[in-house]
């Protein structure tokens, strides 16, 4: 209770890998899900894989903006 004042210069990064993983799952889930829904709606076959790849790509782009430029 007494040592509240010592500042921590570097933020903790030990859980970053797990958070990146949850972003990757989230991206694939969202855009893969949209592709799956469009496939069901339009009766096509190719939009689910397109959505999965698009989601993974967008997530990597976001991780670049978020973590890549420190």
């Amino acid at each position, binding site marked *: 209770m007494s040592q509240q004042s010592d500042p921590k210069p570097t933020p903790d990064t*030990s*859980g970053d890998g797990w*958070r990146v993983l949850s972003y990757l799952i*989230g*991206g694939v*889930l*969202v855009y893969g899900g949209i592709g799956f829904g469009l496939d069901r709606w339009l009766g096509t076959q190719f939009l689910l894989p397109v959505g999965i790849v698009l989601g993974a790509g*967008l997530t990597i782009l*976001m991780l670049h*903006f978020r973590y890549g430029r420190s």
Partner: protein
Amino acid sequence: MIAGVSTEFNPPGPEDFQLPPIFSGVEWFTKPVLVAALSVIVIIWFFWGASRKAEVVPSKLQFAGELGYNFVRNSIARDAIGSQEHMKYVPFLLGLFFFILLNNVAASIPFIQFPTFSHIGWAYAAAALSWIIYNAVGIKKKGLLGYFKHQTMPAGVPGWLMPLMIPIEFISNILVRPVSLSLRLFANMFAGHILLLVFVLGGEYMLLHSGSIALGGVGILTLLMGLAIAGLELFVQCIQAYIFVVLTAQYIGSAIADEH
């Protein structure tokens, strides 16, 4: 032990986790419930005993208690949440860490030997608790709309990409986080326990019931390997308790952070 007479080997499976109630008729009182209750008693006894007679020159118990407390406060809470606000969350994180740790390590304690979190409901409940808390403190700090904006707008992304990124950020922060938190803990405990069952039951079967000397030798090796796996599992059990609490602390930290 004549070849050909031996009974067939039944590999362990998920049904080995469905234990009968301890008292017949009391359906809810199963082994994981007992282990969890015991762990709570042990934790209360430990920290009560460690802090009851606090002295400048600590007793062994007080020293151990302060070691655990300092570890959670400094290495988990303060690093992840920041020195300004972390003290509020230390009691929760400390309790969560030791609850998960003891219930995981219970899998390696003789005669208990059951990881509570290998039943997925326990893992869901633990993850739901952290989910509710990190969302609640975020909403309390920023208001409902402000928090929602905070958790859906990723920092550092150029404006034209934002519409594409918002659903990813939202799903990742609100949905994937609690699911991955619970599944990671559950799957590690479940897989570790079943791995031990495979090595020990398989080794025992080859050693005693296969009726072949060569397989008996392999059985001895398998049992030795099972011993090594048990050591590895002890490590995994501690790591899983640690990573669960570190991530909970980081989610709290990012929910109340001013910006990413």
